């Protein structure tokens, strides 16, 4: 026993140190806690243990302020705005791994038992659906629910149904939205509730089909869900949280889903807070003050730029900056003068002072200069910058002399150019910069201001012949095609339509042929497709349908009581509020 005493003492000391470290993490700065993840609390490989059940951090109420809340709480309707919240209330067959870091873009099975290997030449995907998963209403999730959910997708308004038009019967549903209520995907989706299998049959290969199934549009809802958009009544949930109440522009409350049992920590981990309250009525300025005073735990909106300096200097430990694949750019309409002329598009790219615009956005910590279409850390990305004084991999300075030569050679000097913009401060300041730049290049530049709700559809519709506007693209899923085939590729170009994501109206047949080849290769040999996409990125960048400006990072400002801040890089990610400790 005498010999055991030092051993016991050492063990107790080690235990004490470990406990103190853990406690320090919970109460310390955000920057420190970002390295500590919930996954470290459980043994690797354990997919079922609920990491939060015995944690002292489990419980409490998190208070969030969010002025820019999305348009809907219906996963079938909301496009991007609330995905980060719907991600913790509902689930699809597959999901991006719910962890911080680049691993967060990895696709993992969610309500499916495993990721399927496509058969029939990439045209058939068969899933085995997990047994025992229940909606918050108590109903069990069945394969037929997924079929009904995708069919419902075609019955709801909005341009998003096209994600699943590749299914057999999908094109017919998409083509007749008025008759959408009769949309039948019986041939495209075969659900067997007894065998718990779900088979998707595609009309043609789609290399990103699994990624599309991870989007909230494909989150399971009970088969008897109304085909009409829900406005304020929350839909049944499968995730760790469910929406208890929602008053648009006022508040929303999320509570624990009593039917939730963690089935995969990678796909849908349990959450720490018991309750999450959203204040939707405050302006970003008011919200920032609330977090500053400790009255709220997190502001989901962007902090007003004039407060960035003071906030970052006073509360550096409450600030978290994480990279985002959000590419800000000026869209150049390649179908209308003067931007139908390659020389003019190249000239504007050469003339743009990207460093000044990064500063205007909030500084180099919040934005990284870019010259190309694909963002850094994205599949197939390789740095490339032809639009600088010394072309190479990075941007150094604008080349006004070259720009002026190109403009002179184009013979377009003196033409009228109208910059389309919205009234918000950020867009206005960028537009004013480009108006001045265009004037200095010899154009008669002016601005047309449209309200935010009007501006995007206006620019989308080629009939309006919008010449230039500021835009950004946040990819729907981490695949090069989402940029190169959809936003600046032929697949996304729908003339005279407001469902056109290709605002530059850019469609080059030669590049498109390479895109088809890359998409085909991605299904059979993903590694071999990587250099193909890199080449397409370069070719498209050279064709200059955009003036790529910078890739914006995400800044989060949280209260000092928030611990274990985790940031997921996927499109449905961001600050993982379920993993945060509020006690």
């Amino acid at each position, binding site marked *: 026993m005498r010999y055991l005493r030092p051993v016991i003492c050492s063990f107790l000391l080690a235990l004490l140190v470990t406990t103190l470290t853990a406690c320090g993490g919970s109460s310390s700065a955000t920057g420190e806690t970002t390295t500590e993840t919930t996954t470290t609390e459980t043994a690797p490989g354990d997919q079922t243990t609920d990491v939060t059940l015995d944690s002292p951090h489990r419980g409490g109420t998190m208070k969030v302020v969010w002025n820019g809340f999305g348009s809907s709480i219906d996963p079938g309707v909301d496009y991007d705005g609330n995905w980060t919240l719907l991600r913790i209330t509902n689930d699809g067959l597959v999901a991006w791994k719910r962890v911080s870091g680049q691993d967060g873009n990895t696709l993992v099975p969610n309500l499916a038992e495993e990721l399927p290997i496509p058969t029939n030449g990439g045209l058939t995907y068969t899933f085995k659906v997990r047994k025992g998963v229940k909606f918050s209403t108590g109903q069990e999730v069945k394969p037929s629910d997924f079929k009904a959910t995708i069919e419902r997708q075609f019955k709801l308004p909005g341009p998003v149904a096209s994600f699943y038009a590749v299914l057999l019967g999908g094109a017919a549903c998409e083509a007749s939205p008025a008759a959408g209520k009769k949309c039948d995907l019986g041939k495209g989706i075969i659900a067997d509730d007894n065998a718990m299998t779900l088979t998707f049959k595609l009309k043609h290969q789609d290399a990103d089909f699994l990624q599309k199934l991870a989007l909230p549009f494909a989150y399971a809802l009970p088969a008897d869900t109304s085909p009409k958009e829900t406005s304020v009544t929350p839909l049944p949930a499968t995730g760790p949280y469910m929406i208890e109440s929602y008053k648009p522009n006022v508040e929303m409350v999320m509570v624990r889903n009593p039917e939730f049992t963690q089935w995969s920590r990678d796909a849908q981990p349990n959450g720490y807070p018991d309750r999450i309250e959203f204040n939707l009525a405050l302006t970003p*300025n008011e919200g920032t003050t609330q977090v500053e005073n400790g009255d709220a735990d997190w502001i989901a909106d962007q902090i*007003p*730029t*004039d*407060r*960035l*300096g*003071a*906030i*970052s*200097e006073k509360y*550096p430990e409450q*600030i978290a900056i994480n990279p985002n694949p959000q590419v800000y750019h000026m869209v150049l309409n390649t179908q209308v003068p003067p931007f139908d002329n390659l020389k003019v598009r190249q000239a504007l790219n050469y003339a743009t*002072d990207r*460093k*000044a*615009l990064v*500063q*205007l956005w*909030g*500084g*180099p*910590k*919040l934005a990284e200069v870019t010259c190309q279409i694909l963002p850094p850390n994205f599949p197939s990305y390789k740095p490339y910058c032809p639009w600088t004084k010394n072309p190479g991999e990075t941007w150094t300075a604008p080349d006004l002399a070259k720009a002026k030569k190109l403009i002179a050679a184009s013979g377009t000097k003196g033409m009228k150019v109208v910059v389309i913009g919205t*009234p918000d*401060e950020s867009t*206005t*300041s960028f*537009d*004013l*910069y480009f*108006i*001045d730049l265009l004037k200095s290049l010899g154009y008669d530049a*002016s*601005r*047309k*201001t*449209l*309200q935010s709700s*009007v501006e995007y559809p*206006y620019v989308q519709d080629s009939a309006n012949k919008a010449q230039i506007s500021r835009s950004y693209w946040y990819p729907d899923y981490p695949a090069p095609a989402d940029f190169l085939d959809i936003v600046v590729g032929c697949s996304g170009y729908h003339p005279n339509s407001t469902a056109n994501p290709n605002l530059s109206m850019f469609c080059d047949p030669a590049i498109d042929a390479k895109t088809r080849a890359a998409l085909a290769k991605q299904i059979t040999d993903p590694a071999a497709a990587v250099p193909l996409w890199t080449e397409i990125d370069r070719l498209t960048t050279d064709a200059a349908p955009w003036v790529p400006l910078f890739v914006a990072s995400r*800044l989060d400002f949280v209260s000092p009581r928030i611990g274990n801040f985790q940031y997921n890089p996927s499109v449905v990610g961001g600050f993982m509020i379920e993993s945060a400790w509020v006690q």
Partner: protein
Amino acid sequence: MGVAPTEPAIDLPLSPGPSRGTWATAVRRLRRDRAAMATLVVLVVIVTSTLLAPVYASRVAQTDPFRSNLSGTVEIDGSRVPVIRPNPSGLGSTPIGPTFGRHFFLGADTQGRDVAARILYGGRASLIVGVAAALLTCLIATGIGLLAGFTGGTTDAVIFRALDIVWAFPIYLLAIALSTSLLVQGLKIGPVAVDPNSLLLPILIIAVVFVPYVARPVRGEVLAVRQREYVEAAIAQGARRRRLLFKEVLPNVLPSVIVIFPLIIATCILTESALSFLSIGVQPPQASWGTIVNDGQNQLYTRPLVSIAPGLLIAVTILALNVLGDGVRDALDPRAKIRRRKRRARDS
């Protein structure tokens, strides 16, 4: 057997409408009104300052207040400093000033533009829109009021039911609706086309929405004047309608319009500021006091002067115009002052 109206043999001054002597008396009364004179001086200073905006921008501030100056530098106290300085934390940036000196007297905005120079230019736009819209409103409203009140009957009913429709809309709602829709494509009526960026667009919109508010009292005045003895005497002497309208009625209605005019200018400036603040009035890169208040609302924490300075100028101008309007009314209609005093005495 009807008797055709004939022109009177001798053109006698029938109406007691304002004569040269009446105007001179009014000016004398206005001069004696210290408050009105003080506000007139304030207005003259404001107008002169805004007229000198180009001189201030080019000679004093030596800057173009309509061009972005994101990477620019300026010499202050012998050393060259950036107009926009990145914050030490690396997040955000701080525009220069206010220096209360030659360059960037009130500081720079987020685009690196001189706020003081922009306020002077902005004042020009606000005053031009305010005065032009008020003039247009008074012209249209006087015409409509004269026509409706003098003609009466169906014409009066039709005109005023049409104006009632405009009246039924809250002013700002109507102005916002018109601005939002017209800003998309501009205004096109036949060969007349107004560019969405033109100052003419807010002038027209503001003028149109205020017409009923001036036309109604003008019509009331016309109806009252028509009943006066001198008008009846003119009719009895066989005066023609045109003569009645322009020689008897209009001169007696005009003082009311002149009294309303400064008040309408004030209201038009306020409306322009509101529309521009909402980004549907004067369009960037042009500036008005409303657009500058809007520019400054995102800098209230670090740069409150950007909003406060044009806001104060709007307030001072409106106050001055209102006091001047009161002075003009008292000068043209001294009985109104007596009536007001009596009412105050009764109320107290």
